[in-house]
């Protein structure tokens, strides 16, 4: 099993969710993170003092899935979530050693079902 950690622009969440569901992914987690990368932050001001906001809002989607599915989904994300503009985000792939479903005690692929 793999975990994909997908960092995207917040406005792309719906598209990603749809893409994952079309691939019969059974679950995922989302959280909001502040990202820093080639995409620059912006400048704010407060009572005349300017200051840089270095981090931009990003959405982090974590999905654990069978190894076979990972590559296909990565390809689709590259195809469908790309705007071509700096800040589109990244996918990080990790190995997952084990998955347990608390409700049933099922493990691994069965736990993802």
């Amino acid at each position, binding site marked *: 099993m793999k975990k994909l950690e997908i960092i995207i622009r917040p406005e792309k969440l719906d598209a990603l969710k749809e893409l994952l569901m079309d691939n019969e992914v059974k679950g995922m987690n989302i959280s*909001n993170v502040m990202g820093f990368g080639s995409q620059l932050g*912006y400048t*704010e001001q407060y009572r005349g003092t300017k200051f840089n906001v270095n981090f931009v809002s990003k959405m982090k989607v974590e999905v654990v899935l069978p190894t076979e599915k990972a590559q296909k989904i990565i390809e689709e994300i590259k195809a469908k979530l790309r705007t071509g503009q700096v800040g589109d985000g990244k996918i990080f792939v990790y190995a997952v050693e084990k998955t347990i479903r608390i409700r049933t005690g099922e493990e691994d692929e069965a736990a993802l079902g």
Partner: protein
Amino acid sequence: MEQLINIVWVFLASVMVMLMQAGFAVLESGFTRSKNTNNVLMKNLMDFSIGSLIFYFIGFGLMFGSDSNGLFGSSGFINPVSLGLYADTLSPEVFIFFQTVFCATAATIVSGAMAERTKFSSYLIYTVVISLVVYPISGHWIWGGGFLSQMGFIDFAGSMAVHAVGGLAALAGAITIGPRIGKYTPDGKSNAILGHSIPLGALGVFILWFCWFGFNAGSSLEAATYVGHIAMTTNLAAAAAALATMFLTWFRYGKPDISMTLNGALAGLVAITAGCHIVSMPGAIIIGLVAGFLVTFGIEIIDQKFRIDDPVGAIGVHMLNGVWGTLAVGLFATDTPVVEGIRGLFYGGGLDQLIVQGIGAGAVIAWVLVTCFITFNVIKHTVGLRVTPEEEIRGLDIGEHGSEAYPEFTLKH
């Protein structure tokens, strides 16, 4: 002495109307997204500031200066005190102050309907136009001795003169600028774009309800035994409208909807404003009940059928119910402690008053829509009415003001 009582009365009513700016500011910001909150607040602050100055120097003269063919006032510019209005029963300055805060209310209404996408600089421009020309001219017709007041048109505290004018300008603005990004799906379905803070919205409505007693009862322009009647009709209409809206949303959506019910209370207040002095308590309740229906169906239809994107429901609240309240005078007018001798259709008075009300409403609608469509389109094709899509997505607070409303809080998006 009586003059002093009147002054205390109208002065305090005026400051209550002034506080409506606080009510609208928190209501509108609560009903929009947090990324546009500073922009909403700034617009409210600025339309009051600009309106106060412009109405003093020009608008007041256009509205209350000596009548020119029933169409506009033509004296008292720059120094409106010199007109000496109400010098015996009140004082010219108190009267000007009272009228100033009314004007600011009309201007504020527009900002909600065009929220979350309008360029700040363009907002300033059309606020000037509304305070300078649009509101004072139709105001002159109704309250300044113009042709409608000569015809016997009745609009005690401004369902038409203030709320419908604001709501009509809001309609023209919302149509001209178009919906927010993501509001309608490509196949025309309406998406809900939630406001960010219902407590701010509710606080705004409670403050406005409070202020409305100054708005309506203060329009007597004198301390009088009958002001209690106005307070009661105002309160009963608002209560009936809130209740009707709550039950209607409960019935239609399965659960009582808070944001619509808050709009419902305001709808009742707007609707009773024209006739608060001339309808009976039961009449007020019926006007309120109808307002509850109107605002619920109205907001739905404006949004889903006409696809006009009005983030805070200003058109449904102020335009629809402003017009409804104006016409309702022709239906429900009757003898009250305030006025006698005018009767609406339902009280055996026939169609006369209703027709006058209809003519008045029609004239104001035409005037506001024409001038405002022109104004918004001129702005659109010159300096531009709308921010860029990138700015709209990121939020106008960063884009227009370089700041955030809640810099410490983590947001979901």
